[in-house]
């Protein structure tokens, strides 16, 4: 994909991000923080690609370290966010 396309996508993603996040109710700011935190764990995809290309042991070790860290971020982030949001579900006040 060429640079211009990536630039366009970046600009649009910035708009999407700001518009969507500015609609998040302040009640849910903690889950937003941890949910966004989980999302950047997707760097796992990059880590897997790098590890899959590693040819020498040094590179492989560093890349596998990146995989471990990214997985921890991704899995832990979604689990903890889910735990938090679970609490919001059962609220009797859900009528509003």
């Amino acid at each position, binding site marked *: 994909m060429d640079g211009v396309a990536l630039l366009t996508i970046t600009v649009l993603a910035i708009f999407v991000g700001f518009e969507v996040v500015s609609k998040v109710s302040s009640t849910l700011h903690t889950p937003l923080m941890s949910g966004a935190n989980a999302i950047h764990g997707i760097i796992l995809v990059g880590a897997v690609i790098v590890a899959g290309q590693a040819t020498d042991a040094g590179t492989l070790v560093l890349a596998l370290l990146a995989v471990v860290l990214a997985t921890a971020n991704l899995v832990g982030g979604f*689990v903890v966010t889910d735990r938090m949001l679970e609490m919001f579900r059962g609220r009797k006040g859900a009528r509003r």
Partner: protein
Amino acid sequence: MTLLSPTWTAILYLVAAVCFILALKGLSSPKTARRGNLIGAAGALIAVVTVFLSSRLENVPWILMAIAVGSAVAAPVARRVQMTQMPQLVALFNGVGGGAAALVALLELGHADEPWVRVAAVFTLLVGAVSFAGSLVTFAKLQELMTTRPVVFPGLPVIMGAALLAAIAASVVVVATGSAGVAVVLLVLGLATGVLLVLPVGGADVPIVISLLNAFTGLAVAASGLVLGNVLLLVAGTLVGASGTILTRAMASAMGRSVAGILFGAFRGGSTAGSTAASDRPVRSSSPEDVAVLLRYAQKVLIVPGYGLAVAQGQHTIAELQAALEERGIEVAFAIHPVAGRMPGHMNVLLAEANVAYESLKEMSEVNPEFKTADVALVVGANDVVNPAAKSTPGSPIYGMPILEVEEARQVVFLKRSMRPGFAGIENELLYEPQTTLLFGDAKDSLAKVLSAVKAL
């Protein structure tokens, strides 16, 4: 031979990116939030499966093992952590994400041919390293592995400036030459900058820094998307960058601070911490029974929850107390300060856990005019967010922060363990005012005692 064509790969990554957008959209209402998060997790799963099916990968067993290790470590921690420890967990996860991004950029640098790709790689490396080191320091502060006070020493601004200059120089060299050795130097400089950036931040400002570093990691991941030509990383990282930026700004303004002031305040000498010594001026303290009588004969009670309620895990008891009072015809509402607790929206999460109805949670701007007509303001483990110094004492570290105006209520009851100040480390004059009563003890214990006294009346 790969199973997925490049076009299908790109489409699946796009689907995953849309899942992430929907995850954030879900957070616009508590009703859709959990489903949104699950959609986000599904997107992550799709993306991970896609990367295995679409690239010719070596070392697959090793990679799978690494993923298993990462999951095995993180999932149980995430499942068991106490809600009060959430900020440090978020900080930790944020840090490891940043570290992963930095490593990816370091290893990918050798494949970057075009200069703008190298610029993106250097950005990821530096920002990821800052985020990693900075997050670990905030983790240490919050977990009290080190002091929560600002750490400042004479040469700090100079060292900081030197580290930054060196990092910029190294960045230029790496972009120009692609040298792996200099890249490692850059990594180290990034780590040092991260540490130096966070050391001088006082404990009360740490959550803002976490949110800022969250935005940093997002930007690092977005830039890594440019390096790898991966739209998913680009979009996901940008989303996180936006969310971190908005949250940081929201928190800073709720505390009446500027982000720059928080980061560089300590350099300028305006320390963000006050004294932590307990004063021994006289106060009026009372018994659970007295508090129960006060509450029982009130018409309108506003409860101000704060960090101490979370520490004491008193949310269920306070919900019972609310129910008991409402049964007796007393109007009860919770006054929620946006930065009460240690995370934005902390009190909402806490009270949600105890099934408190949304309707009784009132935001600051909505509830402040109501204190005038309240008979009792029951302050449970909150301190800074009701401290009038924010309005009256220009020199105070919380000066300018909008507060809950509990001093307007007929009676103010504080539930806390001691005369020690809150997180900002400054005394609260309200504790010495004539309308104030203190009930010393752990919030949960005190609440339980008040509750049974109310029921006995």
